[in-house]
C-alpha cells in the first residue's frame, strides 16, 4: 500500500511539463517570499499589487503586436513605475491614488486589447491566471536568474537594506543612499513580477508577495530569519500546491495560494496573542 502511495505521489514527476512547472513555481514562490519581506515591512503591498496589474497592459500589447513578452511588459512596467513616481512626487495625489489611476488605466488598455483582438486571448489569459504547466525553458531561466540576482543583492547590501527599511531618515544621515536602496528594491520587485507573472498570474502575485512574509513575521522577531523563513514558506507552498493541483485536477496557481493561506491561518491560530499582535502591527497590509 505504501508503495502504491509513493507511486501515486511520484506519478506527476514522470511528465516533463510537471517537472518544469514545479521547478519554476518553487523558484517563483521563493523569490516572491524573499521580496515579500520588504513589501510587507515597508507597506508596499499595494505597489506590488498595482505593478502586476500595470504590467498586464504591456503583456497584452506585446501579445497583440507579436513583441517579445519580456521587452513589451518590461518597458510598460518601467513606464508605469516612473509615472506613479512622478505623480506621487508632485504631492497633488497620494502614492496610493497615483497607483490606482495608472494601474487601472493600464489594466483597462489590456482588457480593451483582449476584447478587440480575440486571437490574443489565450496568451493574455495566461498572464492573468498564470500557466504554470505550460512554462518554457526561457521562463525557468528568467525566474532562476532573477532569484539568484535578488538573493545576491540582498545578501551583499543586507545592512543597508535593513537600515533604510527600519529607519530611512537616520540611515540617510548616516551615509546610506536610501533612494538608491529604494530604487534597487523597486527594480527587483518589477523584475520579480515580470518573470513570475506568466507562472502564477497577475491576480495571484500580490498574494504570494504578502502571505509568506506575513506568516514569517508571526513566526519570528528577527529580520534576518524572515529573509529565509518567508522564501521557505513560498517555495514549500508552491511545491505542495503543485502536487495538490495535479491530484485534485485544479488550477495550480490557485492551489499554491490556498496552501500558503492555509499555512498563514494555521500559524495565526497556533501562534497565540504574540504572533497575532505581530501581524496586527503590519497595519498597512
Amino acid at each position: 500500500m505504501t508503495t502504491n502511495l509513493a507511486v501515486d505521489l511520484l506519478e506527476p514527476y514522470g511528465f516533463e511539463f510537471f517537472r518544469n512547472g514545479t521547478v519554476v513555481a518553487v523558484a517563483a514562490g521563493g523569490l516572491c517570499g524573499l521580496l515579500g519581506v520588504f513589501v510587507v515591512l515597508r507597506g508596499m503591498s499595494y505597489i506590488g499589487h498595482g505593478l502586476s496589474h500595470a504590467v498586464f497592459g504591456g503583456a497584452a500589447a506585446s501579445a497583440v503586436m507579436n513583441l517579445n513578452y519580456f521587452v513589451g511588459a518590461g518597458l510598460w512596467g518601467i513606464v508605469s513605475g516612473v509615472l506613479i513616481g512622478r505623480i506621487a512626487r508632485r504631492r497633488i495625489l497620494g502614492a496610493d491614488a497615483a497607483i490606482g489611476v495608472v494601474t487601472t488605466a493600464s489594466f483597462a488598455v489590456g482588457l480593451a486589447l483582449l476584447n478587440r483582438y480575440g486571437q490574443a486571448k489565450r496568451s493574455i489569459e495566461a498572464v492573468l491566471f498564470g500557466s504554470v504547466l505550460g512554462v518554457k525553458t526561457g521562463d525557468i531561466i528568467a525566474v532562476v536568474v532573477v532569484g539568484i540576482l535578488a538573493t545576491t543583492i540582498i545578501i551583499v547590501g543586507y545592512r543597508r537594506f535593513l537600515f533604510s527599511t527600519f529607519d530611512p531618515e537616520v540611515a540617510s544621515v548616516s551615509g546610506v543612499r536610501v533612494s538608491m536602496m529604494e530604487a534597487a528594491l523597486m527594480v527587483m520587485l518589477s523584475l520579480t513580477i515580470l518573470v513570475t507573472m506568466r507562472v502564477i498570474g497577475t491576480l495571484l502575485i500580490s498574494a504570494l508577495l504578502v502571505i509568506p512574509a506575513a506568516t514569517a513575521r508571526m513566526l519570528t522577531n528577527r529580520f534576518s530569519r524572515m529573509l529565509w523563513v518567508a522564501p521557505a514558506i513560498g517555495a514549500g507552498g508552491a511545491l505542495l500546491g503543485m502536487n495538490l493541483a495535479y491530484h485534485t485536477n485544479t488550477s495550480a496557481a490557485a492551489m499554491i495560494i490556498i496552501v500558503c493561506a492555509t499555512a498563514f491561518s494555521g500559524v495565526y491560530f497556533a501562534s497565540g496573542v504574540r504572533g497575532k499582535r505581530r501581524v496586527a502591527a503590519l497595519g498597512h497590509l
Partner: protein
Amino acid sequence: MNLKPAPANLLVSCHHLSCAYGDNLVVNDVTFNVERGEFVGIVGPSGSGKTTLLRAILGMVKPVHGEVGTVKGVRLGYVPQVESVDWNFPVTVLEVMVMTRPQRRVLPRITLAERREANDMLERLGLAGLGNRHIRELSGGQQQRVFVARALFHNPDILVLDEPTSGVDVRTRHEVLHLLADLHQEGVSVLLTTHDLNGLAAHLPRLVCLNREIIADGSPRDVLVPDVLERLYGAPMHVLEHGGMPVVLDHAEGAVIRPFRPRAV
C-alpha cells in the same frame, strides 16, 4: 553641506540661514555655531522652526538662503524622536546598533568584535544584557537609550537629538537628562531641540531661543527671562528661581485658569 574653512573646534555652523516650505518662511536669517565640547539646546514654541533648523543641519532640508552644515570630516550621530520608527519592526537591540556599521564581508553576520563593542556600549548606557531583546520589549527610556547607543556606535563627533524628552514620563525624562549630562562629561558634544523649558532646557549650559529667527543665545540664566520669553512665545510669562535655576511658569500672565465646578443637578 561641508563647510571648508573653519576654526579647529567648530563642528556645526549656520550662516544667515533661511529655510522655507513653499512661500512659508520657517527659519529666517539664523546664524550660530556649535563648537567641540558644547552642550546646546534649541528652544522655542511649536512651529518655531526648531526641527526644520535641525533637519537643515543634518542635510535633510535645503536652505533657500545662507549656508548650513557640518565642518568637513565631522560625523553626526542623529537621535530622532522615539515615535519616528515602528517599534514592532523585527529587529533586536544588537541589530539596531550594528546596522549603522558598513558591511565589510559578503555575508552579513555580526562579527565577534562588533558584538563585543556593541555590548560594551550597551553596558555604558545601562542596557547591559538587553542586546538580544526585541526592541518592542523595552521601556520608553530604554528605547531612547538604544537610539543614543546606536548614534554613539557610529563614533560621532556630535550627538544631534530631536526632542529627546517629547512624550516621555517624568522618570524617563530624568534618565535621558542624566544620560546626556554624563556623556557630555565624557567629552561628547550635544545639540538638541526641546520645548521642555523646565524639565530639560533649564539644565543645559547654552540655549538658542528660536522663533523663526534667533531671539536670544546664552545660558539659561541669561535667556530664560521674562523679556526674552515674551518675544519667544508672544505672551508675557513669569520666571521664578528655585535651587539657583530659573523656573518658567507655563501659562501666560493674565491668563485666568478657572477651577472646574461641577454643574448643579
